[in-house]
């Protein structure tokens, strides 16, 4: 800190300021990473120690899962149709059309199913968690839990994290199935590709590993969304406008994290 002030006084702020900015950013990243790790560790401890109410886990599964299902289905149908149309357009006259079965299946299962479902859940579930916990933080309800000897991590964080890990794989599996089916129907209606041919193409390049890959993504995103949204909610300060500001930041944080994690999957798991 004192180093930057002396450099700017001695006339080289052009070097000092960006360095200071990098330093501040790294410190902030380290701070978030440390707090996320601590939150995860405390949640795991609460779950393993059976301090978490079964009812609130079921409640969270319902809120995250059942209530998100319609929007997840719509997204999956559209993703399947778009992939099918796009592929059909590119392949026309060049490769056998049944390849489309494989293209749609692997795009949906490997990428679109998990990633689009996760992005939908960021808006549908993550934003809600940050706003809810942020409001509880600024209205001192989190302090009240502590004051009354209750553990807010066991009561609020752990059920949401466990529910996320359970719910996302189920939603992704449904999205995969529905997306591929929608792509298959679209291929028949617009390109005249029969179901048999589509499924033949799909099977030709299918690996069981692909489903495992898809589910691994789902679990990872299912952990990241509640973990980040809770963390951001608990950091909220500054009243109602603070809740708004933190919720926006939280959505950015979750979206970026999902896209970055997604980029790490191919080199790690598709070798």
């Amino acid at each position, binding site marked *: 800190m004192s180093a930057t002030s002396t450099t700017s006084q001695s006339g080289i702020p052009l070097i000092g300021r960006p360095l200071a900015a990098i330093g501040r950013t790294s410190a902030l990243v380290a701070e978030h990473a440390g707090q996320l790790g601590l939150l995860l560790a405390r949640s795991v401890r609460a779950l393993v120690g059976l301090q978490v109410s079964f009812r609130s886990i079921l409640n969270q599964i319902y809120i995250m899962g059942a209530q998100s299902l319609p929007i997840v289905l719509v997204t999956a149908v559209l993703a399947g149709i778009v992939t099918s149309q796009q592929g059909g357009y590119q392949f026309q006259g060049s490769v056998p059309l049944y390849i489309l079965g494989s293209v749609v299946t692997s795009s949906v299962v490997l990428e679109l199913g998990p990633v689009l479902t996760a992005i939908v859940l960021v808006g549908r579930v993550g934003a809600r968690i940050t706003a809810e916990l942020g409001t509880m933080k600024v209205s001192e309800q989190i*302090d*009240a839990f502590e004051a009354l000897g209750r553990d807010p991590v066991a009561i609020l964080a752990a059920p949401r994290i466990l529910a996320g890990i359970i719910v996302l794989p189920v939603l992704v599996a449904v999205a995969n199935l529905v997306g591929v089916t929608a792509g298959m129907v679209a291929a028949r209606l617009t390109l005249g590709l029969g179901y048999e041919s589509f499924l033949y193409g799909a099977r030709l390049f299918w690996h069981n590993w692909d489903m495992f890959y898809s589910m691994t993504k789902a679990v990872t995103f299912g952990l990241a969304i509640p973990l980040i949204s809770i963390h951001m909610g608990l950091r909220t300060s500054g009243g109602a406008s603070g809740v708004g500001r933190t919720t926006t930041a939280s959505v950015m944080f979750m979206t970026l994290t999902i896209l970055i994690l997604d980029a790490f999957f191919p080199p790690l798991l598709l070798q």
Partner: protein
Amino acid sequence: MIRFRSVHKAFDVPVLQGVSFEVEEGEMFAIFGPSGTGKSVLLKTTIGLIALDHGNVAVDGDWVYGSGKAALAGVRRKVGYVFQNSALFDSLNVWENVEMGIAEEVLARLPGRERTRKIWEALELVNLEPRDILRKIPAELSGGMRKRVGIARAIVGRPKILLWDEPTTGLDPVNTAAVERLIARLSSELNVTSIVVTHDIEGGLLMCDRVAMLEGGRLRFIGAPDAFRSSEDPVVRAFADRAAAEAALDQMEIT
């Protein structure tokens, strides 16, 4: 006894810069001060809700910071905290909110009838009719009622110490007087030590054995109500006069 020793806390800017004082057992103690000077932060340090930069707080001889989880839990069991905005749990009804005021391990051993009696008594102590409101959620209550449910939650576990963060701010004069009578009554009936953060200077001076004024991160004044009234410190004078004028204005606006 509660002992604040050289309490330092900065957020983006320094808030508390070395606050030291003691509150005796059974005493009623008021803290005054302009908004944003750290009165709530100071009160929260009593039960370890805010990580300190420096200093410590002792409750009945147990240090709040650095003594481990068990010691902190012990301190928190002794203290009832009335939050500035009531801080009722939105998703729980009045009954469940007040029930949260009973320690978990006590709750586990308590027969159902005893539990009902405790919650019932706490609500009656704050002049609420339990039958009418038990099943209501906080959003269905008026501000004054929420405040009283918050008080019921703080006293249901029979704490030795009560911390009040602006218990009368935002209430009309009738409710203000009622809550102040309640604080005085609870403090004498339950024989507790009370620290009251308040903007109602007159009320605080009438109720309390000693008062303090927090300003610029430090205690500007600490002493008996009479000494506060006759203080010649210009900062204390200016604050007290302005607060009196504001209180008069509030009265005019509400009535």
